[in-house]
């Protein structure tokens, strides 16, 4: 590990012209003090920030092009470094993602990922799993808010779901005890729960949210979810200005479908997070409109579009770039480029609200390029 640090420091010194000055901080912060680690990277001045872009498969390249165009019109100081999924398995990562791609994300600290289709077959890890494990992405953040102008049955949704991404029920540790009996392990650790709770409260504070709700089933799974709740309570004490509450998950589901305005920031373990975040995505209009961002150790943020690669409309200029654009906005917020983020966000919302340019999945007839142009005009 010492050689890796040395390599990184040398590389960062060599690329000083391109990198923002704070980029040496996350790395050193991680080495020297775990409490000082920066939870977000700061952009300073007019230096260009390098960000890794994975266009992905299917409609990925088209919507990535859309994002690049919008960012160019908005004059966002970001320089994209594109990486593509390789054609053969890289032995260093045991998947189709090359070591260089992962290194570039680690170095740049931010990335944007389009939809990737995991090739079917054995002998390699799934792409999402590779990214998560190698970059240590511990929190998945999904802001869900109703888009004014796109009418769904719920118009007052405004909540964020923060889901622990590494352990819990998705450890993948299963075995067959005897024939016909299978056990699956759900693991909760103090370290991971503290990490995600810290991020949740930090996020609430920096985005001006005033309530954090921890979702659990500790009345049945007393030790596991009990540990998660204990960690959340500990962190809550450090942020006395933010209200903290605990909600049992079945209550939470019911309240979400009856009155989503009751919730603000939700923090949960892995499985509940998966279900609740998809439920909230359904409330606002589906995966085609939902942004998502994965936060990793050392302040790495990888924003991604959670929808599929839609191979049937690939290349036809029909795809809806909204999810990737909104994810890119989340990435800008993480980089503390709040004014640019707000401008682009407002442009997207206004374009959809106007109703003149909408892609097919929102009920309109525009193409991707028309939609993108409309957003640029609204900037």
């Amino acid at each position: 590990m010492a050689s890796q640090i040395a390599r990184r420091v040398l590389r960062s010194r060599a690329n000083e012209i391109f990198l923002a000055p704070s980029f040496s901080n996350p790395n050193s912060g991680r080495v020297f003090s775990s409490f000082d680690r920066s939870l977000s990277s700061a952009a300073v001045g007019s230096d260009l920030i390098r960000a890794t872009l994975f266009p992905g498969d299917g409609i990925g390249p088209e919507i990535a092009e859309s994002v690049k165009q919008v960012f160019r019109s908005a004059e966002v100081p970001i320089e994209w470094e594109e990486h593509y999924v390789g054609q053969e398995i890289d032995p260093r990562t045991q998947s189709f993602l090359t070591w260089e791609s992962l290194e570039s994300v680690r170095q740049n600290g931010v990335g944007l990922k389009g939809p990737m289709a995991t090739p079917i077959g054995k002998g390699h890890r799934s792409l999402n799993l590779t990214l998560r494990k190698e970059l240590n992405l511990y929190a998945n953040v999904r802001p869900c808010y109703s888009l004014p102008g796109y009418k769904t049955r719920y118009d007052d949704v405004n909540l964020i779901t923060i889901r622990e991404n590494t352990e819990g029920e998705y450890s993948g540790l299963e075995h067959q005890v005897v024939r016909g009996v299978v056990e699956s392990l759900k693991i909760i650790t103090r370290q991971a729960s503290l990490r995600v709770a810290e991020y949740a409260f930090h996020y609430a504070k920096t985005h001006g949210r005033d309530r954090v709700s921890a979702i659990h089933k500790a009345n049945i799974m007393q030790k596991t979810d009990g540990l998660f709740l204990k960690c959340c309570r500990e962190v809550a004490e450090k942020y006395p200005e933010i209200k903290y509450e605990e909600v049992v998950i079945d209550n939470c589901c019911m309240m979400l479908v009856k009155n989503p305005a009751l919730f603000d920031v939700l923090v949960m373990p892995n499985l509940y997070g998966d279900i609740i975040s998809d439920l909230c995505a359904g409330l606002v209009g589906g995966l085609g409109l939902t942004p998502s961002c994965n936060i990793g150790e050392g302040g790495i943020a990888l924003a991604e579009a959670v929808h599929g690669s839609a191979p049937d409309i690939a290349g036809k200029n029909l795809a809806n770039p909204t999810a990737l654009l909104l994810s890119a906005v989340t990435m800008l917020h993480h980089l503390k480029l709040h004014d640019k983020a707000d401008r682009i966000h407002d442009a997207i919302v206004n374009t959809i609200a106007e109703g003149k340019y909408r892609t097919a999945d929102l009920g309109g007839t525009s193409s991707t390029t028309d939609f993108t142009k409309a957003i640029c005009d609204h900037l």
Partner: protein
Amino acid sequence: MARRTAPILKQLFQSSDKSTHLGLLSRFDPKRSVTYMPRPGDGSPRAVTLIPGDGIGPLVTGAVQQVMDAMHAPVFFERYEVHGDMKKVPEEVMDSIKKTKVCLKGGLMTPVGGGVSSLNVQLRKELDLYASLVNCFNLPGLPTRHENVDIVVIRENTEGEYSGLEHEVVPGVVESLKVMTKFCSERIAKYAFEYAYLNNRKKVTAVHKANIMKLADGLFLESCREVATNYPGIKYNEIIVDNCCMQLVSKPEQFDVMVTPNLYGNLIANTAAGIAGGTGVMPGGNVGADHAVFEQGASAGNVGNLKLMEQKKANPVALLLSSAMMLRHLQFPSFADRLETAVKCVISEGKCRTKDLGGQSTTQEVVDAVIAALD
């Protein structure tokens, strides 16, 4: 020895006749099938164990008792006090349920994070109530965001994530075991398909997360697929649980009967209850091979909060509809129909509704309205 054993044997046969209602029927005519008209002498009262429970439980079970009295329903209740913070369900209550075989229950509140294991789960495990059924449907006259909802969620009730097998590996690391067995998965799949067949339902959907939990949920799916081949007239499909939740909030009309393992079933039942009108109106029950416990369908909010208790504004509709299900289970379909019609009438009129349905009435007012609507 034959002289001594003959009266004992006679007594044994007679007592086993009395304890099942099939025995009751066979006393009159073993070959006559069940008709839907109450027969004279056939309405001999059945004993039902009643557990008022915690919170709003006593309020709503009191409501059910009042309505049963008004209807002259041939059931009499044996009340037992059980509270959520007891260490285990008292012996006398278990004996009573084993004797009567039917129980009506209010909510039992499990203290969060405490050392007490949930009494609800204990009851289910001991009586082997392996299927939990929640029927979520749009009530006519009750406005909701979603139309055309008629979903039955059948949830495996004994194993899965709720096995309660947890331990601390080292300080700061806790493990919880999720156990899935072929036996239980097959049982619940058979129940679900049989229910769909007997109630003329067209589709059964299995909810799972087998892309991540390949062995555990894979076993569940295998069992469902096997049972599905025995019912060619019923459509069968599978859906991943997060996609399912998304579809439930956007297009709930595509679901009919859903069969799920324990945890997902809990979430899906509460979500479906929420979209169809709220947990205050959805009936449900837990069924085993020998016993049945009826309670408010969705588990969220079945204990209520302090304010509801004080103001006596709890919604009794869910427990009333569950008791109608219970009457049907006890083979008193005419009473069940009367009760359901009365409740639906009161809801569709819209004059007497509790707070969770948008009205201002108290529990007592709703009960009075239901009794008045009985005809």
